[in-house]
């Protein structure tokens, strides 16, 4: 019997960006897993050098068309940290509202269009829409509400134009925001339906002992602020990130792989946020999670789709709370004067932690930039999931194993455009 196998996907679909996977199996042993990232490098950290501090939010937004708000938020917080100012009150609330919009749009895209088709055996959401038109329509309309928030506050859905260091260019009145409330009330009900629907999918049995890393805030589910914590003892300020996390450059990837010093791979994203911040979710989101069969701890990465649905519900709930209490600020932005300093920003992109660090000179020119996107932090952990998953699923026929390997990767909603871009799956089985 031939016991060498190769599982190969040359072009991984339904992820943002371009990558491949190669798994080599000898007998019943997985000998090598490589998540390959072929996305052409775009050198953002280099091209930011020499630019003005105020350009960072618009320039870094272009790293990712799916989560531009995350890049803008990490950039403005890092710049404000460097300049020694704090943005509070209604401006802070508006940033949170904007982030709610991106979470709703990005998570709904992933849940309905990229991930759910795997569980139901469809190649894509368009095929799925032929059998389940109401479900796909609900997803599209829910996504649209998320986009409506980003478009109203940001000017447009992709690469919003209204975010600046210190706040916004223009802030909405209460009346501008009023139409959102009705749409969000519908969206919250649709999100609840989403959690219930996703709970009916069947998940492969697969649990891992992860080190989850996410922000933790004293009283909020985290978006823009907090300490960096893990379930295995990490508890640091964000400026200490680089003393605990190291990036390695491996030959098979254009993305740098981030690992915790002396501890190895860790996981960021919805699963990490949920496990570390369940108590910070709104009562409605907690209740929906429980009814969907989720406890406060979830270690099955295939259930990330369920956790993502809970986060959509939370984001709708939180957006409604923010809308109800909004009073327009006196000024659209806090004035600031640049200074020679280093600033740090870390926020929760839909896919997980996004770290920015900038060093400025006294004129506010960027001397040095460092950006660590969520997918480079998850990359090593995805490879470990694949190794462990394939080892327990060797009996599956090739086609099914290949598809499930793709699904293991899609569990992370990887954004390879961020990490650089492109996945291919290549699983090799070799003679023992």
């Amino acid at each position, binding site marked *: 019997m031939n016991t060498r196998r190769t599982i190969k996907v040359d072009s991984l679909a339904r992820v*943002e960006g371009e990558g491949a996977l190669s798994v080599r199996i000898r007998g019943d042993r997985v000998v090598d897993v490589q998540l390959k990232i072929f996305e052409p490098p775009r050198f953002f950290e280099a091209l930011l050098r020499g630019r003005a501090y105020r350009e960072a939010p618009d320039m870094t937004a272009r790293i990712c068309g799916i989560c531009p708000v995350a890049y803008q938020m990490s950039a403005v917080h890092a710049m404000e940290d460097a300049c020694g100012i704090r943005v509070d009150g209604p401006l802070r609330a508006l940033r949170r509202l904007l982030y709610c919009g991106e979470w709703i749009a990005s998570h709904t895209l992933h849940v309905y269009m990229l991930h759910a088709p795997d569980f139901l055996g469809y190649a*894509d959401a368009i095929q799925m829409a032929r059998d389940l038109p109401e479900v796909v*329509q609900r997803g599209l309309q829910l996504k649209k509400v998320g986009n409506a928030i980003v478009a109203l506050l940001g000017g447009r859905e992709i690469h919003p134009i209204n975010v600046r260091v210190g706040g916004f260019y223009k802030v909405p009145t209460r009346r501008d925001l009023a139409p959102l409330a009705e749409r969000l009330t519908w969206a919250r009900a649709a999100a609840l339906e989403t959690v219930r629907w996703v709970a009916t999918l069947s998940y492969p049995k697969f649990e891992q002992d992860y080190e989850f890393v996410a922000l933790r805030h004293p009283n909020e589910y985290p978006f823009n602020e907090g300490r960096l914590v893990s379930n295995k003892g990490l508890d640091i300020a964000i400026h200490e990130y680089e003393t605990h996390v190291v990036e390695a450059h491996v030959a098979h990837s254009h993305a740098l792989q981030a690992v915790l010093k002396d501890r190895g791979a860790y996981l960021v994203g919805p699963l990490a946020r949920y496990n570390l911040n369940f108590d910070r979710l709104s009562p409605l989101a907690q209740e929906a999670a429980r009814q969907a069969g989720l406890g406060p701890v979830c270690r099955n990465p295939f259930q990330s789709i369920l956790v993502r649905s809970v986060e959509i519900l939370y984001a709708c709930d939180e957006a409604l709370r923010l809308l109800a209490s909004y009073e327009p600020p006196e000024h659209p932005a806090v004035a600031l004067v640049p200074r020679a300093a280093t600033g740090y920003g870390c926020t929760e992109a839909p896919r997980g932690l996004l770290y920015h660090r900038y060093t400025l000179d006294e004129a506010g020119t960027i001397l040095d930039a460092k950006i660590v996107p969520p997918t480079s932090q998850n990359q090593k952990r995805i490879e470990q999931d694949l190794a462990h998953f394939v080892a327990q699923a060797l009996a599956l026929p090739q086609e099914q194993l290949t598809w499930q390997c793709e699904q293991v990767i899609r569990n992370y909603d990887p954004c390879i455009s961020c990490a650089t871009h492109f996945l291919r799956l290549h699983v090799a089985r070799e003679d023992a």
Partner: protein
Amino acid sequence: MPRPRKPTLAVWKFASCDGCQLSLLDCEDELLAVAGAVEIAHFAEVSRAVGRGPYDLSLVEGSITTPHDAARIQQVRRASKYLVTIGACATAGGIQALRNFQDVQEFLRIVYATPAYIATLATSTPIAHHVRVDFELRGCPINKQQLLEVLSAFLHGRKPHTPPHSVCIECKRRGTVCVMVARGTPCLGPVTQAGCGALCPAYDRGCYGCFGPQETPNTASLSAWWHGHLGVHQIDLVRAFRSFNADAEPFRRESETHEHP
């Protein structure tokens, strides 16, 4: 009678952020109708299914930055009846074309510990530098209404209607007071192609040129105004013209004028 074959659509990605192809998915109300009118034969971000070419219409996002991609775009062209580029990367090289003004080896050393692992070209170039392009849709990102217009035009065998005039016309239509005249805010609107709906001025901000140069823009006159009346420094003029469409010819020339005044 057999039904006529639906035209096939393919979406291709080169160096980019995914935002322009995402614009198609952001047409929440029209997406299923589009999927009904065409056969989506290749769209990796959306589907595992891969239909073989040739394709009636290929949408191309991203710029050419690697030897591999320079070869791949030739294959895409050969497999496509019509090829339309979407966005600033595909039509002008994108933000990553900032490397064209510097030494890419230096960039590699700044970002990657082991530069030998990376295969990259010295430049980021638009698709039209490599193959014949049937239509170029502007924007960083593209406007989704304009994308639907392009799809509809190609399905009906007509030329897409995308106005070539400046953002100023859109501000007038929208009734937005000129931010440059009224507030002294530097604005690239007078030299930038319309298509976004004049968003930035509507948000009390100057246009930053993400749709690239309009036809025959008078960049020198605008720069003189910025410098003379608004006190904008030479370095900030270089930055203004050198962003998401840095290597579009009129913007490139203008930025170079101020780099070594």
